[in-house]
């Protein structure tokens, strides 16, 4: 018995150690970059501490049961049915009631208000995010800016995020900035995003939404205000006509080989609404909702065979000639 416990302890320690030293692309609920998440984290450590006490207490009782397996009654008291029942009342009713009342007031009256959806007009700034199978469409009301999967917000500024879905239920979740809220067709929701440090915060769809639920991630960039304003100004601008002849030809490929039926590039005739807006594709660091890096090589292989990297996504393979493919790539490379 003792050896088994020792082994179990060792394994648990190993498991805990195994997770240390990771920092790249974190998506942890244990690192808060806003008041809301820090409150939830404090709540978690508090609950964990209380839970650990209860668990340890129960293990002590089991250990006593094992040590006294040949003796009847309670240590020091002996057999007394009323005392035993009293213990059940104390540990089964009185102590849990007290603990639960405390937890209820802290969590469900206190923290819940701090994390609740912003009231209309409470924040100066709003953005709108629409969930799609399987990407995030991001709009900045009051501007013409549209982007996908990579959301920029000014640091230290509360931003209201309005959440809806274009198809099935998704869930908007950037754990280091706030709790998750579902994106439902027919039920608009909202959430406050606030980051008190400049940085990139990883998020992911948290409600099972079909084949590529696993590849529906996003990144929230909290930028210094000036950088944010510059980014937004660029994002709102339609595409400047392509400069090189190859890119010009690529634009024609885009407009004639089905691309435009799903994608929008503002400033051209492409106005499709099924896939992400590509007007400033090259400002994004990743493709396919954080599935692959946005480099020429990856972009090319994505266009060649979109079903290989993210099977089931809605982009069909296109039968392009090598020349058309090179032209298209040149055009897409210019979407800055």
């Amino acid at each position, binding site marked *: 018995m003792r050896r088994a416990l020792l082994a179990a302890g060792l394994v648990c320690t190993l498991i805990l150690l195994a997770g240390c030293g990771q920092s*790249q692309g974190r998506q942890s609920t244990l690192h808060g970059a806003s008041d809301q998440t820090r409150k939830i984290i404090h709540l978690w450590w508090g609950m964990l501490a209380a839970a650990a006490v209860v668990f340890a207490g*129960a293990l002590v009782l089991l250990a006593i049961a094992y040590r006294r397996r040949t003796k*009847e009654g309670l240590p020091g008291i002996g057999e007394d049915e009323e005392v035993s029942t009293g213990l059940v009342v104390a540990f089964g009713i009185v102590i*849990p009631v007290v603990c639960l009342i405390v937890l209820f007031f802290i969590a469900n009256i206190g923290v819940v208000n701090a994390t609740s959806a912003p009231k209309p007009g409470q924040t100066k700034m709003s953005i709108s995010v629409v969930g799609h199978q399987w990407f995030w469409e991001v709009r900045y009301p009051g501007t013409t800016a549209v982007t996908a999967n990579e959301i920029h917000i000014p640091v230290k500024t509360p931003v209201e995020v309005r959440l809806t879905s274009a198809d099935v239920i998704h869930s908007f979740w950037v754990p280091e900035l706030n709790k*998750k809220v579902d994106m439902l067709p027919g039920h608009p929701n909202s959430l406050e995003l606030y980051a008190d440090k400049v940085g990139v915060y990883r998020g992911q*769809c948290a409600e099972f939404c079909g084949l590529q639920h696993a590849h529906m991630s996003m990144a929230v960039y909290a930028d210094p205000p000036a950088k944010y304003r510059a980014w937004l100004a660029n994002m709102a601008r339609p595409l400047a006509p392509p400069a090189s002849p190859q890119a010009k030809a690529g634009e024609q490929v885009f407009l004639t080989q089905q691309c435009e039926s799903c994608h929008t590039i503002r400033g051209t005739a492409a106005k499709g609404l099924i896939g992400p807006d590509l007007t400033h594709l090259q400002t994004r660091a990743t493709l396919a909702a954080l599935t692959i890096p946005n480099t020429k090589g990856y972009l090319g292989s994505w266009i060649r065979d979109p079903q290989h990297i993210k099977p089931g996504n809605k982009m069909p393979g296109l039968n392009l000639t090598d020349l058309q493919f090179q032209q298209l790539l040149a055009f897409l490379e210019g979407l800055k």
Partner: protein
Amino acid sequence: MTIALPPEALRRVRRLERVWEERQGVLGWITTTDHKRIGILYLFTSLLFFGAGGVEALLIRTQLIAPNQSTLSPAAFDTTMTMHGVTMIFLFVIPISTGAFGNYLVPLMIGARDMAFPRLNAFSYWVFLGSGLFIYTGVFTGHGPNAGWFDYVPLASRTYNPGPAIDFYALGLIFNAISSTAAAINFIVTIFKMRAPGMSLNRMPLFCYAFLAVSFALVFALPALSVDCVFLELDRRLGFSFFAPGRGGDVLLWQHLFWIFGHPEVYIIILPAFGIATSIIPTFTRRRMVAFPMVALAEILVAFIGFGVWAHHMFAVGLSTITTVYFAAASMIVVIPSAIQLFAWLTTLVTGRPIFKTPLLWIIGFIVFFIIGGLSGIMFAAIPFDQQLTDTYFVVAHFHFIIFGAAVFPLLGGLYYWFPKVTGRMYHEGMGKLSFWLTFVGSALTFFPMHIVGLLGMPRRQYTYPAGVGWDSYNLFETIGAYILAAGLVLLVVNLVVSYFRGAVAEADPFGGATLEWSTSSPPPPYNYAVIPTVSSAYPMWDVEDRQEDVRKLNRGEMVLDEGHETPASTVLDANFDEILDMPSDSPWPIVTALMITGIFAMILTGHLVAMCVFLALFAASLAGWHGVEPQEA
């Protein structure tokens, strides 16, 4: 029952044997109405489905052993993950707990000779088998349900899920609910009306309290699920719009109805486990349960309060704060009856003289895991924490500690505990302990790291995950744990199979059990008890005088009821002898009726409405056959 009986008594026993004898061979199993044989059918069928669900679990864990694996395609993963849930809940835990344990043991524990409605009981089994095969037909024809076990719309609507996969799910669950409802009604009537004389409600075993509570919960919870599935089929097949946003429907309606069923379902799953724990603990601690009335009341309360907490599954959908606060408060209240039971078990263990044999070890494992799962469950009643951690691996960890650790561990302990009673053979103690430790360590290693990986932000239900987010090593541990767990379960099966053929012969009461089933032979005769026992406490086997009186009654011919297929009925509260019931004998009609229902569902699925009407007519005809007058028995 090895004592030589006087000739008078022997004649009575022979007569009972003749009256209660059923057909031999396969035909006997098909037409049986004996609650014990039906229980065994349930056991084997649900264990087969447990095997299927286990293979699905190992496939999931193998796929997730490392980032970016391709053991399963995304589509295969979604089906596997959905079927793992559907199988474990609807085709394993409920059938094995109510169908196998309940069926076999409830009549024995209350001193009855059968369930109140033996043919309905057989019918429940055949419908369960039919519904299980129906759902798996989908899997084997490449149309396995794939929208998760709670099947949220609109992902499950025809727009996003054309093809019959979801129809197999929705029709299969309506079909399955027929079985559970019939079984639940049967238990309620059996427990209320068939208790042995003297077994007033305050003397009824806590095991039976658990099954009474489960049965009521099933009767009231299942209609919500069935209605939900009917709505879904109407939407999918006939273009209705219950769940269609923009056409007056609402996607949240599905979730509300589903969880109005789904949360009581959690208690339906776990209460039989509580019942088994309260049977095993007194036996192996050699003392009565501490706080018996409080535990009985707590079992009923859990089932009742379970109906008022469903929206805590929906804290992230954007309900108003006041709604979430109400449901969080209600969810916290459920903690109290659970804590009462937990500390009643612990106090009984501390004050008794526990013998740590295999069945009790499983119960200790259950207690440890129930505390872990219960504590993480309380955390989810803290709304902001729920909203942060729901739909991550933290919640997967939580409900596996509850459903596997707390609900299935006692079932496995119960398999060992009642194995001698059912087979007449003893299991192997050393192998039993080893199987426990393997399963226990495997479960902890599988499910505990899921807490951590959930806290690190890993969402559930993703077929793969990227490297470098910090999830890799935990997933590796979980997969290793899953294989250790599986080894423990395989060892359990090997132990029981080998023991069935080569185990030592078991006496009637090898463990010194407290409840009536230990007073009859192992295995029990078809009529259970030669003399209907009379009960004067909640621990009838420990009332030695009462049991000796049973033997004297057999000699005198009192309460033998050997004039026909007879068992007594008693009054609901005090269990005073009420009347003698003439029970129906074995019959082919339950399986025929179940077959017709299978035909009806298959024809709805394939859209052959005329053929469906034919099966409907045949169903009505078989009901008529079922209720036809049978020739008087000799």
